[in-house]
């Protein structure tokens, strides 16, 4: 158990509303990641963080922003949700040494945009 929680676990929202998903870890890991998972696409990286206030874009970052003001929290924000952002969102932490980071995933958030 890597001590990762996500909230909320389920959310239904309307198109055009802002949404913030929270990832919380208890083990002081430096690296954190946000993924989305859709049928046929596997896990795709949205944004990642390599320290407090240090974040960067992944392969599918359009329409998403992130913030990390504390080591333990990594927030993902959809500024104006669209139906194409309906997905399951996973947060992960990276644990290990350079070149061999194992990633451990949170339980996921199922987001539906109507």
């Amino acid at each position, binding site marked *: 158990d890597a001590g990762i929680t996500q909230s909320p676990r389920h959310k239904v929202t309307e198109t055009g509303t802002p949404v913030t998903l929270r990832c919380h870890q208890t083990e002081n890991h430096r690296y954190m990641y946000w993924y989305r998972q859709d049928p046929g696409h596997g*896990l795709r990286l949205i944004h*990642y963080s390599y320290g407090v206030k240090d974040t960067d874009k992944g*392969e599918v970052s359009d329409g998403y922003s992130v913030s990390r003001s504390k080591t333990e929290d990594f927030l993902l924000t959809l500024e104006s949700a669209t139906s194409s952002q309906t997905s399951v969102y996973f947060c992960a932490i990276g644990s290990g040494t350079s*070149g061999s*980071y194992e*990633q451990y*995933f949170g339980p996921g958030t199922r987001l539906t945009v109507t």
Partner: protein
Amino acid sequence: QQPVQSPQAVILREGEDAVINCSSSKALYSVHWYRQKHGEAPVFLMILLKGGEQKGHEKISASFNEKKQQSSLYLTASQLSYSGTYFCGLLVNAGGTSYGKLTFGQGTILTVHP
């Protein structure tokens, strides 16, 4: 670029063996394998590093051919609990700027029947 996994799906009976392959068009530093059960988060299985080192947590073996940029996961004497979707994740660069970012394949669905 997303790695390619094959086969896309495998159906086995308990006790049978299976091999799942993962190939990349880029030179790799390490290959990570994960298993995800329906409705759950992906779970780390093992990592194979350039140079032959392996780190794993379960009785599953794998190989990493650096020249061919391929990895294979070997599931022997399969059990019902092996059912799930298997993902490979690739780390292309090992340096400090990689931040442990992985690119995942689309997944292989493994079903084990009694």
